């Protein structure tokens, strides 16, 4: 997914002279073709993320479209004020290409785990928050990103993730995609974002084999959140389950809850939120290890959903 994103930046830069790339201190040779062909629009500015974000905002104020990149936590924690003030207050088209969304950097520990990034980025006025489910969707998103007027926080997954998106889904920023539609009149609806969509689809297959036909709705855009899609799917649902690779406080599930409370009030369906707890991760391993620790693996999603169904039926 990261490669798809970087390749897209190069492609966009060839097409559009407004596109600029700014890295912090990333891999040697990164976007080397762009560096060679467009040296005035390729920057590597060192371990100085506050400056990277500020200069990106300055460029955007002059009509350029900077794609800035570093590790997710360095944007969201280290340079939060620059993101809030320089990018969001000015409402300029800076793109924050954020490596290692969620639990990707499992072996590197809590300094590198972007667990609260969705919560704090979606709290910022004017910010758009995007978490694609795979590399193919990332390509479609990047084409759509060029002329989006506001700053975008782009949460990148690990890479090599299974391809579950389909070209016919298209891509419109702010528009959710129904990945799997239940035939039940009052279905269980799994609402997901990022690569949790993949895990949810795997869980849906297992549930289907057990006779539970669930819907899966993918929200690649967490802000602006597609309230119409949430309400459409929730009206008939007997249970809405949100699944995210991030903390529950203020996260994607929190956003869905807000929409349901405001939109349906007492008529809102039962809900279950699957998310990370309010704590820093104390383990290492790989991303899938942490999925298991936090109940985000497909099997665990199945168990959580069936337990909740049993609880409701009791």
């Amino acid at each position: 997914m990261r490669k798809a994103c970087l390749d897209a930046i190069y492609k966009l830069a060839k097409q559009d002279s407004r596109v600029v790339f700014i890295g912090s201190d990333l891999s040697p040779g990164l976007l080397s073709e762009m560096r060679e062909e467009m040296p005035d629009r390729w920057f590597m500015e060192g371990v100085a993320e506050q400056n990277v974000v500020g200069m990106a905002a300055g460029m955007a104020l002059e009509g350029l479209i900077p794609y800035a990149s570093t590790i997710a936590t360095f944007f969201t924690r280290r340079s939060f004020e620059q993101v809030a003030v320089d990018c969001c207050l000015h409402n300029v088209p800076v793109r924050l290409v954020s490596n290692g969304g969620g639990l990707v950097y499992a072996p590197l520990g809590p300094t590198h785990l972007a667990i609260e990034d969705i919560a704090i980025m979606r709290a910022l006025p004017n910010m758009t928050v995007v978490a694609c489910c795979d590399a193919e969707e990332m390509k479609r998103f990047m084409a759509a990103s060029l002329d989006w007027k506001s700053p975008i926080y782009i949460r990148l997954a690990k890479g090599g993730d299974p391809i579950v998106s389909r070209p016919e889904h298209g891509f419109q920023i702010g528009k959710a995609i129904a990945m799997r539609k239940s035939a039940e009149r009052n279905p269980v609806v799994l609402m997901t974002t990022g690569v949790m969509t993949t895990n949810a689809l795997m869980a849906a297959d297992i549930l289907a084999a057990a006779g539970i036909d669930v819907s899966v709705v993918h929200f690649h855009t967490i802000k602006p959140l597609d309230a119409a899609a949430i309400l459409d799917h929730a009206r008939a649902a007997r249970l809405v389950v949100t699944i995210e690779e991030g903390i529950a406080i203020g996260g994607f599930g929190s956003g869905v809850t807000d929409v349901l409370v405001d939109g349906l009030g007492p008529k809102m369906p039962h809900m279950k939120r699957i998310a990370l707890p309010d704590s820093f991760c104390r383990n290492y391993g790989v991303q899938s290890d942490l999925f298991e620790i936090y109940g985000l693996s497909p099997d665990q999603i199945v168990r959580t959903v069936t337990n909740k169904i049993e609880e409701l039926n009791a």
Partner: protein
Amino acid sequence: MAALADLSRPNAVSLDERSKHLRRLAVRALDKGERGHIGSTMSLIEILRVLYDDVLRVRPSEPAWPRRDRLILSKGHGCIALYVMLAEKGFFPLETLDTFCHRDSILGGHPEFGKVPGVEASTGALGHGLSIGIGMALAGRIQRRDSRLFVLMGDGEINEGSVWEAAMCAGKHRLSELTAIIDCNKIQSAGPTSEILDLEPLVDKWQAFGFATVEVDGHDVAELRKAFGGLPLDRGRPTAIICHTVKGKGIPFAENDPAWHHKAKLPRETIADMYRALE
């Protein structure tokens, strides 16, 4: 490095009628708004006066003119001084100064891009302006414009680590079109900069980060004109102009007193005293 002999006593300079007039306008905004960063405003007046009168290529009737020079007031709390100059130059009517900090005014306690004609960036959180200026300068190169960039910072402001990240970056890119201006009034909110977080050797620091430097008396209009007129000091480096100033300059009872960093709801007689000091 160009240095001047009498920088230890920048308050030795007497203010001419234009400097007093600009300060009276600042007091007017302060009075009508019932608040403001007085000390920080008064130390900036001559720097901004010379920039707008003699240096900046701007069009008040066309604030977004692409070929303009850009000035970012990174120490946004000194905004009354900027508002006074923008009003004086016709970016908006002088009467707008009377609305400072009012509910529906365009003029808030920190300047905002998109609200105030002539304001290039929203500032107030310190340590942001230099990076934004670098981005604008690099954009100017990409867009093949000959605009110059001026980023005006406070000496307290440059406590911020982000300033030094930006300074390294400006040095690296040899941004000779970028000038950092330091309003060095020696007093920050909590007290003297030498006690709170000592900046010295300040000139050496900017030089070490890749800047050509010059020190001037920040209230001496002729010296300021000379320094700005000589830009860039070096064709291969950005410039830092260290302006030695007096916090509260022109209001004797406010000068060099940290208590006058910000004031609200000043009594009528104090406002009258301020006007008297500026006659």
